[in-house]
């Protein structure tokens, strides 16, 4: 069951990332970052960044890149 094994911020970030996967990587990562900035509460973005910092297990590479783009603003 996804909810018990994957933390929500990882699952949700992956779900956003896959929707932009058809676009060039950098363009898509920027779109994902914008989405997370517009709709995610700061503590969720912080949790995502922390997850990336600790290895980013299970996170879509595009979500990892999006998290990096968020870092200066976070």
């Amino acid at each position, binding site marked *: *069951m*996804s*909810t018990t094994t994957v933390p*929500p911020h990882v699952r*949700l970030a992956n*779900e*956003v990332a*896959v*929707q932009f*996967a*058809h*676009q060039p990587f950098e363009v898509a990562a920027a779109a994902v970052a914008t*989405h997370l900035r*517009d*709709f*995610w*509460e*700061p*503590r*969720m973005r912080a949790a995502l960044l922390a997850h990336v910092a600790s290895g980013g297990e299970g996170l879509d590479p595009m979500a990892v890149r999006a998290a990096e783009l968020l870092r200066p603003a976070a």
Partner: protein
Amino acid sequence: MTLLKEPDFGTPAREGAATVEVTIDGVAVTVPPGTSVMRAAKEAGLDIPKLCATDSLEAFGSCRLCVVEIDGARGTPASCTTPVAPGMVVRTQTEKLGKLRRGVMELYISDHPLDCLTCSANGDCELQDMAGVTGLREVRYGSGVEAGANHMDLLKDTSNPYFDFDASKCIACSRCVRACDEVQGTLALTIEGRGFDSKVAAGAGVSFMESDCVSCGACVQACPTATLQEKSVVALGMPTRSVVTTCAYCGVGCSFKAELRGDELVRMVPYKDGGANEGHSCVKGRFAFGYASHPDRVMAPMLRESITDPWREVSWDEAIQFTARRLREIQAEHGPGSIGAITSSRTTNEEVYVVQKMVRAVFGNNNVDTCARVCHSPTGYGLKQTFGTSAGTQDFKSVAKADVILVIGANPTDGHPVFASRMKRRLRQGAKLIVIDPRRIDLVRSPHIEAEHHLQLAPGTNVAIVNAIAHVIVTEGLADREFMRERCEGVEEWETFIARPENSPEAVADITGVPAADVRAAARLYATAGNGAIYYGLGVTEHSQGSTTVMGMANLAMATGNIGRDGVGVNPLRGQNNVQGSCDMGSFPHELPGYRHVSDDGARDVYEQLWGVPLLDEPGLRIPNMFDSAIDGSFRALFVQGEDIAQSDPNTTHVHAALAALDLVVVQDLFENETAKFAHVLLPGTSFLEKDGTFTNAERRINRVRPVMAPKTGKQEWEIICEISQAMGYPMHYDSSAQIMDEIAMTTPTFAGVSFAHLDRVGSVQWPCNDAAPEGTPIMHENGFVRGKGRLVETVYVPTQERSTRKFPLILTTGRILSQYNVGAQTRRTANSAWHPEDLLELHPHDAEVRGINDGDMVALSSRVGQTTLRAVVSERMPVGVCYTTFHHPVTGANVITTDNSDWATNCPEYKVTAVQVALSSAQVAVREELAQRPVVTAGD
């Protein structure tokens, strides 16, 4: 207000300019061509006696009471069926006509019980009125029982819980039959027999309750006598005063006259001037208001320290002080972001506005979300991305100009019945219908209506189907390229994307289960049949790709130029009465009122100035995020305004765990609902009969909700919010709800022209309502999109992660039925339960057979998150592999089954796709075994 009686013009209005001048009893009047003489007379202020005519129905010409004399015409034609002609000279009152009319009345009265004084319709009976108007003084054939053969001993049919049918009083005018056909479109009634023997029947030899009747009340409304009469009028007597207000059930937003006798509500009568419903209603708004005075209602505030303690009734002051103190304590301990609120789509705009104001200005965060999160949040996202604003494009009336109607993921005859009646009328006139739905909903085939195409897709594949339709439109050269070039952006990229082979109907047929030829035919029809209108519901939004489907439909409308005029558009059928309004009022955690992002400095500045506090520029938590954060401990207190999240939100186990983890739950509601089981404070709410404010319906129409009675709890809900805010140290005060609307108008550009006084003057307005559009905006994006150019979005199909497996081989989808409403808190407390006493599981005969399930068996329904038991209905409506249930009853707890998958953009839960298994319940197996062991009893034993 005294009892409001709208004028009856006898026949419907005709469209067009008034160009035909006639003279009636010496009065000149000019009316549009096609108008009846009867209507023209009424417009000139002259009443012609009538019985079989009423202006909601086309003229029938059976009673002959409305005869007139016309210069140059032979005989005495019926004025209801005679259209005006230029220069016509008409006389409505002559001795000859008087005699003819008295003759007609004499016949009617001779076959009618003369118990006017004790009749329930005394004072509200057109037969009685006409006897007076025509000057009938004697009945030569005798009357009542002396008159020989008559209908007076016919039995009363009292089977419907809300109205009686007393055939002895029927004058066979056929108004009821025509109302059921023309207004409601159910065609449940017929006139049986001929001549003297003719009588009204609800199907062959069955009672109203056993017939196809859906209890909309249109026939009761149309009946000129006491034959069809509300039971409440029989019991309580004729009402004496009216208050015009708005239904609090679905997003159609019907206007009603609440009719009272003293302070007692006798009946709700649909209001002819209501913009959304124009005099029609459904069983919920018309009859199911009894919950407002149900003994289960919570009447006094209640408190408890722990959710295992019993409730303690307390004063308002104690409840408010406790709430305020605990909220502040929790913030002091766990930070400003540790508390939040959920607003309700059941409450008024004004009530929602003050709750979001409390969160932003007093809590100092943006942790406010609304129950629209779990239904139409993808509409907000999708339409904003494409068109620039989060709302449907049309008024309801627009459907009358549609040539092809595409209904996707909506079941209007159950969910939005009064709008469905409008739609069905247009379909009977010949508009074409395309239905995209896994289930064979009633619209697919019903009396005089048959869908051209029913694309019975696998749940979860909406995006693939919508893309395939767009693919056909683009690759077969059916697109309106001029419209796209002028009005849209991203055209080339989108065309290249959608033309790719993987979006073709052939490529997706395996995924969707819909034959490619059907998709191609439907696409051609939508693109070429004239005005194409899209209507959709939760079957679109409640998916992991809900937002993407909304954008895909916007693409379809833009690609075919079906936007910006009458008869076209993209229209969400909103679930609850005020979903539109609660979203408009800034209940999303990322948006201030009027859909302005919290990071928009200009918008924030307006509120910071007015409210005198700095506002946070970062989005707050959404409902599912609140639950997740409650479980991880960073979110500790929740104020819930009139929503039963413990029952209505998906994956009940997870929600219950989250609620149980909170330090403080405050519930404001009519009843001690499931969520209240987790609450520390229960604040009694007001029913719509007590509220003073506005609701905004699915067509952006702002309707007044006027108090029919004083709040039974002593306080309006917004007053309670103000008092909590004050107790938390922030001065919030309004003298009236009108003042709250004034603040909304002052701060929200799309509402700038709205005030209670303006609404009282014009009835209702559709936003945007401002200097540019003082009377509101029925149709949006006429000369340009709100965002400037319409944006075509590449809507890639990404399958849901929810898949059927060996363990859970079926897909469950959920919905609602006509007589019940959402979690059923209201409707279950009315006689509506006569139609739907329990939630049922519909499944295909094949799926039932392989599991040994018969119709009516109790079955266990399980998914990877939970299990419940309910009764099975074996039905060909379902495709193989898909089953369906409703979530109206807490005992079933259908959301025990649904998962926490959600729309990628908005986290709207994926209610519509859950992999499940169905098996005979162990109780049912036991019953079967017991039956098998019983000795066989043969007839005659």
